[in-house]
């Protein structure tokens, strides 16, 4: 009888479907209505019991009665519920007529929950599915190590510096950097005064040719003469006066560094004028030094 069953399984002896946690007991039996391990929810300890379960998106009402207790194969009777929510509730009611209130209520609750999660599944499958691709530890480790070794072999800083110096040699920067004592003296032959903008036109043509011949598109052009860059000149040139000039330029340009990005075109004009200034003030600095 069910009372005996419950007193054995529920309280004293072992029930393999029972899962205990700190606060509650759960029942893992697939026919359980509520999922908890209670006297009224245990499918084994109640001879008259019903559940709602879903299979492949369709809901079924399972019922168990005392008459069939001797025939385990025919124990659970299955009724397909209609897809319409209200109709299905009526079907549950008419199948479980005269059954205890608890079971009827819980069946309907469970049916409601099931339909809601089925709706949610259908909505989610329409949205983007996130595909999880498992990482393989060995491969991850191997790739990390190879990356480290490739980094060491790459010698990035050296490579970048070499490339930049190459570009400097190839005159891609045009007139910006003023290194009088450099290897490409042949460029000096083209123009006497390197600070004139006339030579820039020639330079630009040369640079365009260079750029087109190259293999990897380096996406650059030579710019117009940008004398804001004079502030970067730190090389010592032949004359002391030039050094002094540069020092003056540096000092004046240092103040500008923050501003140059904002006032582009305005800046370009000023340095041009500045150079004329410096030529004029040469004698004054000379006198000062003397």
């Amino acid at each position, binding site marked *: 009888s069910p009372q005996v069953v419950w007193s054995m399984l529920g309280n004293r002896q072992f029930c393999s479907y029972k899962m205990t946690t700190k606060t509650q007991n759960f029942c893992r039996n697939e026919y359980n209505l509520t999922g908890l391990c209670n006297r009224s929810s245990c499918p084994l300890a109640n001879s008259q019991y019903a559940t709602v379960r879903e299979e492949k998106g369709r809901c079924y009402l399972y019922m168990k009665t005392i008459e069939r207790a001797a025939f385990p194969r025919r124990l659970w009777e299955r009724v397909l519920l209609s897809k319409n929510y209200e109709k299905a509730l009526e079907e549950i009611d008419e199948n479980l007529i005269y059954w205890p209130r608890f079971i009827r209520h819980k069946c309907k609750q469970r049916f409601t929950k099931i339909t809601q999660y089925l709706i949610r599944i259908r909505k989610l499958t329409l949205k*983007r599915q996130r595909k999880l691709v498992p990482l393989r530890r060995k491969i991850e480790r191997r790739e990390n190590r190879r990356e480290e070794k490739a980094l060491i072999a790459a010698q990035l800083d050296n490579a970048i510096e070499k490339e930049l110096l190459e570009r400097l040699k190839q005159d891609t920067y045009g007139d910006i950097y003023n290194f009088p004592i450099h290897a490409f003296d042949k460029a000096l032959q083209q123009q006497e005064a390197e600070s004139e903008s006339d030579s820039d036109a020639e330079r630009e043509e040369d640079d365009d040719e260079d750029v087109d011949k190259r293999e990897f598109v380096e996406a650059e052009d030579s710019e117009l003469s940008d004398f804001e860059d004079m502030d970067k000149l730190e090389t010592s040139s032949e004359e002391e006066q030039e050094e002094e000039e540069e020092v003056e330029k540096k000092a004046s340009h240092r103040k500008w560094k923050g501003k140059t990005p904002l006032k582009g075109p305005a800046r370009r004009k000023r340095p041009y004028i500045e150079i004329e200034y410096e030529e004029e003030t040469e004698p004054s600095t000379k006198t000062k030094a003397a």
Partner: protein
Amino acid sequence: AGEGGAPVPGDGAGPPAPQRVLFPPTFSVSEIKNKQRRHFMFLRWKQQQRKEKLALKKKRRKEREALGDKAPPKAIPKTIENQRVYDETTVDPNDEEVAFDEATDEFAPYFNRQTVPKILITTSDRPRGRTVRFCEQLATVIPNSHVYYRRGLALKRIIPQCIARDFTDLIVINEDRKIPNGLVLSHLPDGPTAHFRMSSVRLRKEIKRKGKEPTEHIPEVILNNFTTRLGHSIGRMFAALFPHNPQFIGRQVATFHNQRDYIFFRFHRYIFKSEKKVGIQELGPRFTLKLRSLQKGTFDSKFGEYEWIHKRREMDTSRRKFHL
């Protein structure tokens, strides 16, 4: 184990090859059953090997010094780059076919200066702080780029909107466990889509001795070591992210360096100290990419036509074979 010499089977015409002299059969160390003794014998054998090697080296050095100036040049050490399996798709600088292809592929409008790059940077769903900060920093590095939150939108729907608003490139940074680990770079008016695995991401604050913030100047681009055809197209993809006219006053340079199929991205500020010396200072984020797949159209994982996918079983068999 000892070897037996046998006369070389061949025509009966020549005399039989001389028999090799058999020394008393040596035993190999691995045949000793006792582990301790075996270990001991192995160590002794190893020491002997090392001694022989050292002796050989010394002898060679002495010979070298003895010869003095007439010594033969030192042998070039083998590196993985030296030993790299020759890839038949390596691009020859004078190849006309490649030049023609490049004049007519999807990047041609960019390289003809017809389009200005405009980049959209976004992430996967619900990005964490690190990814968001990385996106912002990337946006400062790449000029004319905008960061937008993803908010659960499907890429297939974003792409037509982007094209309508004149974006030329789309970058999606995929995130896993709070760190960015993947990058999808898609050239927009139906250009190729490249999917990379991203690793060792360093934000600006994690870089030691970094400089000030990257300014708004357009940086130069350096593309190193993209030798094969595939590497070439990837290199052009990267180049297409940056506007054509670098502002040299900014002195900033973005580098994509390919080494053994790993693409290292660095962002530096340089200064020429003399005509033979340049100093560089790293600003900006750094990361490494490894190409996983290159797809012909815009992002379409199901029906896209893949130009290249990394197939581990076939492509990772040789350690000296690289594809980029």
